[in-house]
């Protein structure tokens, strides 16, 4: 067994509670209840342990992390532990006063999600009336305080035509960076493939727009791009390689190799408090299951790209091929690739109402028609 190198980043999902109900939410369909969430002190201890094992970047996420009333205290504790603190938020639940408190607590950076570039689109996708206007108000406060800002635009068939405007908005808001992320089909998004799968033409147009904008906006706006991978020929380098650079702590303290890992039925996860984080990172069965390349079957094992993309995404292999150790079906070398491309085209041609993310134990379906 090789010793795992120290992790660089930790995603802390402080809560699964969220005022929005985006149909592509990456939270598991079976969400953690409020009563099971780690306490303030437990999170603080996790931050200290994370810094001790080499984590540099802390992403505070959810659900909506602002739902936690102790967010400001948690940011201060994370900074005290020596971590770079990034808040991933919809903006809902943040007031000017709370942002000022986060500023005093030492928050380094804010990543603001964008569900659409018009109130109609954003509020429909987020399932929250008034959310867009609220978000624009929060963006103005962020600019006033001077937080470095990344806009995180999640794109899919319904809103991909808004990509050019999203890029303009990022510049107008003074964001240094935008993430242009085509929906990845995990969690709730798996139930929404007929509603959200982009067409191949849309995916190609998005790549063209991003390529052009990267040249035009060089030095002004950095663009990170997650393409529509069902339409790709090689899989994404998921998590930079399983158990290699990052870890995820769920609201109840379970430590996961990625946010979707609970969709792989055979994995068992350790929980902070039961076992030191250092031990979990090095020895947890879940982290070692797909770490490195020894676990790989063919065609990955003899592939020259095996340390480029590490066989792609394990959760996607589970969801699409029914086998978490299979080659990601996105890959041209996967026996499932041709079938996946056909399924992607069929999803893209289908029509379906949105299935909104629920709160724990509750699912909401978009009304059909008006």
């Amino acid at each position, binding site marked *: 067994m090789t010793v795992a190198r120290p992790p660089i980043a930790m995603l802390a999902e402080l809560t699964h509670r969220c005022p929005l109900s985006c149909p592509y939410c990456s939270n598991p369909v079976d969400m953690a209840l409020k009563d099971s969430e780690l306490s303030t002190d437990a999170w603080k201890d996790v931050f200290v342990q994370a810094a001790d*094992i080499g984590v540099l970047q802390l992403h505070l996420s959810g659900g909506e992390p602002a739902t936690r009333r102790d967010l400001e205290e948690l940011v201060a504790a994370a900074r005290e532990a020596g971590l770079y603190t990034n808040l991933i938020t919809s903006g809902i639940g943040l007031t000017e006063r709370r942002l000022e408190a986060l500023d005093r607590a030492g928050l380094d950076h804010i990543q603001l999600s964008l569900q659409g570039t018009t109130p109609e689109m954003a509020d429909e996708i987020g399932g929250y009336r008034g959310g867009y206007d609220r978000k624009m108000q929060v963006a103005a406060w962020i600019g006033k305080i001077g937080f470095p800002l990344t806009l995180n635009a999640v794109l899919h068939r319904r809103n991909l035509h808004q990509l050019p405007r999203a890029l303009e908005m990022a510049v107008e808001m003074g964001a*240094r*960076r935008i993430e242009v992320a085509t929906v990845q089909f995990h969690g709730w998004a798996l139930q929404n493939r007929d509603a959200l799968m982009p067409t191949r033409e849309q995916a190609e147009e998005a790549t063209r727009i991003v390529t052009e904008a990267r040249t035009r906006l060089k030095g002004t706006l950095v663009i990170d791009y997650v393409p529509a991978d069902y339409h790709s020929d090689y899989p994404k380098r998921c998590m930079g390689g399983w158990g290699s650079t990052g870890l995820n702590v769920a609201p109840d303290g379970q430590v996961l190799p990625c946010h979707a890992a609970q969709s792989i039925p055979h994995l068992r996860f350790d929980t902070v408090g039961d076992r030191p984080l250092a031990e979990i990172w090095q020895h947890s069965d879940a982290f070692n299951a797909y770490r490195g390349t020894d676990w790989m079957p063919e065609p990955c094992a003899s592939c020259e790209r095996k340390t480029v993309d590490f066989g792609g995404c394990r959760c996607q292999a589970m969801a699409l091929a029914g086998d978490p150790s299979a080659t990601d079906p996105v890959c041209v070398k996967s026996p499932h690739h041709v079938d996946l491309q056909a399924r992607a085209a069929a999803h893209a041609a289908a029509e379906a109402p949105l299935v909104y993310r629920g709160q724990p134990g509750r699912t909401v379906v978009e009304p059909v028609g008006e």
Partner: protein
Amino acid sequence: MMQPSDIPSLPRGVRLHHDRVRGSWVLLAPERAVMLDATAHAILSRVDGQRSFGEITAELAEAYDAPPEAIAGDAAGFLGALRDRRFLELA
């Protein structure tokens, strides 16, 4: 291209950090941690929003007993790449 009179600075949200676990310096920025070698750290530790690029390269040339033109070329390449990623500002 960087001019000797340019004054580089690290914008808010970008900072030098000593990584005690790996025993090295790192530049922390939004979604990125850039591991720094000794040269990169020597350059960035002089980026304070006060010293000009010309002053920084002159100091480095003296400290490392190296030709100023070579130092300026290397430093401009490194800082220019950081600027393109919006990890550095010039005044």
